[in-house]
């Protein structure tokens, strides 16, 4: 996980996706050819850090490493540029987590590799009133 994490750190820290220079279509995660027009004229683009919730769920089960975070709110978020992203929703009262709620990205720990392994960071979102 460590080296794959290092490869992706800018994507996890700054939500960097792609923009097609030919048709302006944006994507996160990045693409290699534009999924709208097929062009290879692509470059990195930092995604907006705000958006709204279009679907959400609270998970009561977890993968290894996430046990302590149950119940885990997960949101399907539409960023202000139309790109959809799935992420944890944190620091938000449960009643505020609803469709159309505005959210903003935050920088948090995603997981840790036990007591002596690495710490993994990345994006989550929180509801902004």
């Amino acid at each position, binding site marked *: 996980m460590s080296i794959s994490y290092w490869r992706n*750190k*800018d994507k996890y*820290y*700054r939500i960097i996706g792609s923009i097609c220079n030919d048709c302006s279509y944006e994507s996160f995660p990045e693409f290699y050819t534009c999924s709208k027009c097929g062009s290879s004229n692509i470059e990195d683009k930092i995604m907006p850090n705000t958006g709204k919730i279009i679907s959400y769920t609270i998970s009561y089960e977890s993968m290894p490493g996430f046990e*302590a*975070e149950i119940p885990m709110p997960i949101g399907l978020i539409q960023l202000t540029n139309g790109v959809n992203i799935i992420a*944890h929703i*944190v*620091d938000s*009262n449960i009643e505020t987590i609803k469709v159309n709620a505005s959210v903003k990205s*935050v*920088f*948090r*720990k*995603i997981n*840790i590799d*036990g*007591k002596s392994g690495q*710490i993994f*960071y990345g994006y*989550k979102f929180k509801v902004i009133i």
Partner: protein
Amino acid sequence: MKSSTSVSISGYGGYVPKLRLPTSEVAKLWKGGGSGPNKAKSVANIDEDTTTMSVEAARDAILMAGDCNIGAVFVGTESKPYAVKPTSTIVAQALGINRTLAADFEFACKAGTEAMQVITGLIGSSMIDSGLALGVDTAQGRPGDSLEYTAGSAAAAFVLSKRSENSIATIEASTSYVTDTGDFWRRQGESFPKHLSRFTGDPGYFHHVESSVNILLKEINAQPEDFKYAVFHQPNPKFPVEVARRLGFTRDQIDTGLLNPEIGNPYSASSPLGLVAILDVAMPGDKILLASFGSGAGSDAFSLIVDDNIVEKRKNSIPLREKLNDNVEINYGTYAKIRGILDR
């Protein structure tokens, strides 16, 4: 000390985690009732640490500073997530900055102001244009110890730059005073610090803060009444009030920056966060005294003068006191779960 070129704060940001542990919860467990000296302390959530809080505060500070060429990222903390691996490189990467000096500073609760001093020198010498100084901690108190009431979490970030019309507050002068005084320490490999109780008072906190402030006042030929605001390191609600009294500062001067009653002592973020609270309301021309204290021991003292553009610069940021109102109280069980799980 004065740098040869004027250096100012061009952006600032404060981050305090949402969770609060009322000290009555701690007292209920260990004393059967009552509360601690402060009302509550801020608690970093399971997915927060020194690095995550640094990034949040730094992002706000950089947003306020605007376009600037950051050449130093220094994180002052005593709760580094890694004993060996700098927090500052993670913060720099998260901000998209690679051509920079980066280091973690350690000097108990004065590591943040230490970073401010060093960056002032780097800018003053024209080696860099701007620098980012962070004072941040997720302080841990040994269960049942008196520090458990106050050891809190927060981050304060300052972007320092050459003085310009973009400035918020200029550093008029600063001092640093240190002695080898082991009032509070943590050995390698230990989870919690140890301290010498009442010895941390006069020989520790008071001696060093009074010394650095008196040296500073003499250097710039100033009196306490010249300052609109004063903020001191806040290990508990009482010490800053007492040291202010001893130095000749009034309650009015220190109230704006006094955060310990609400959030406890976030160690390296303590006095810097108090400065953030002051900058949220200070007006052009106001003089501010900042004095930190780090066990081991030492104190940094600064005199700052607020610049003309402060109101315009801070207009888009949410004041710290307003952010503090958005909090959620937890009980000791939840607190223990959060702390215990950090050991996994």
